[in-house]
């Protein structure tokens, strides 16, 4: 099993969700994060005082999927999240040692 962790632009969230749904990927966990990479943030001025906002709001999507689906999932995900501009985000993939469904103790890929 693999964990796919994607950090994307918040306004792409709906599109990505649709893309994943149409692939039949159901399980996912989302959280609100802030980040920076190539994209360097911007300045905000409060009462003439400049503040650099270098951490921009992003959405992190985490999905644990079977190895077999890795390729199609990352492709669909990247496709839906892409605008071609700096700040589009990253996808990271990790190995998963075990998965357990709390409800009925299913383990491994059946638990996804």
């Amino acid at each position: 099993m693999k964990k796919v962790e994607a950090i994307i632009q918040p306004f792409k969230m709906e599109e990505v969700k649709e893309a994943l749904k149409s692939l039949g990927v159901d399980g996912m966990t989302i959280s609100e994060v802030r980040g920076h990479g190539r994209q360097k943030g911007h300045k905000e001025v409060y009462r003439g005082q400049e503040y650099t906002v270098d951490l921009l709001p992003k959405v992190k999507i985490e999905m644990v999927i079977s190895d077999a689906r890795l390729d199609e999932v990352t492709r669909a995900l990247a496709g839906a999240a892409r605008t071609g501009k700096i700040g589009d985000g990253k996808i990271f993939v990790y190995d998963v040692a075990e998965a357990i469904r709390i409800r009925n103790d299913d383990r491994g890929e059946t638990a996804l």
Partner: protein
Amino acid sequence: MTLLLWTIASKMVFIKTGRLALLLPAALLAQAPQTAEQKIEALEGAVKNAQMAGDNAWMLASAALVLLMTGPGLALFYGGLVRKKNILGTMMQSFMMMVAITLLWGLVGYSLAFGEGSAFFGSLQYLFLDGVGTAPNTDYAATIPHLTFMVFQLMFAIITPALISGAFAERMKFSGMLAFMILWTLIVYLPMAHMVWGKGGLLNAFLGGSIPCFDFAGGTVVHITSGVSALVCALYLGKRVGYPTEPMRPHNLVLSFVGACLLWVGWFGFNAGSAVSASGLASSAFVATHFAAAAAGLGWVIAEWLKHGKPSALGAISGAVAGLVAITPASGFVKPMPAFVIGLAAGFVCFFMVSVLKNKFGYDDSLDAFGVHGAGGTLGAILTGVFAPMPSTTR
């Protein structure tokens, strides 16, 4: 429980005086005396009563509005500007002024400010508010109960130190803040209020003072005093840990926005209430207040537009507050258009103070209590001299 209620009820005697008192004026008219002379006399009393009802209605509303300025107005305005972790602490500073200054005022404060005393201090005449009753104090306000005048002035005494708290938001201990505020009120505010407003005060030429001072609703007493004290505090306390490298930007401008709106609305009580009546003077002050606030919001926004290329919500509300401060001393003396000019000037000047001068000098006035209240108040005091017509020609 019924038993309990019973016991309480039976401990209580007599009727509701409230309801009784109400019937008196009506009664007076009902059992109308026979001769024209008597009728006229009765009418004179009735007219006085009616005049008091009207003026008192507005003054009670004004007192409520001025309290609304401190809590929740100022508390929200300041609370939104600090970092998230400090919001409750900052709001509490305002609230504790509502608590502590009220006590102080009742014990000695009102007496020291408005008792008939020397040029610099009042007297102990009204200690524990003794002698402050429903009869008007004709020296200060002939048509409203003395109690109304006292509580209206109390609301001013509450907001003044609360304004200062903007200078040391985020870095003063609660107990230290409390001690400071009480001492400051005793040593700075009360004498200052006496000098400008008190009977026999040095700057109160109308009531026996020698130097005349043109301060309608407390530009000098409230805003210059608090603004300058704020600057002194900011300098004395030094900068907040991490200032200015660590970003300390406002954490919730929605709260500040609501606070600023409540300040604007409450300020109608502050300025128009300073007419101590519901007269044309009150209307005039009300209008001047509104125009100055709007103009200063505009001024600050334009200044931002010129300097940073775009206006900001914080700019608009900061400007409005600056305008309200600046119009305070002039509000009873000027027409809408001069009020507009004063406001516009305040918007520009205060913008300049907080966004240019402050950085130059490098002091850390957390919430710009000096930049807005000190500078706006001083500007207002000066422009009052420029725009206010001679009293005899005002209206």
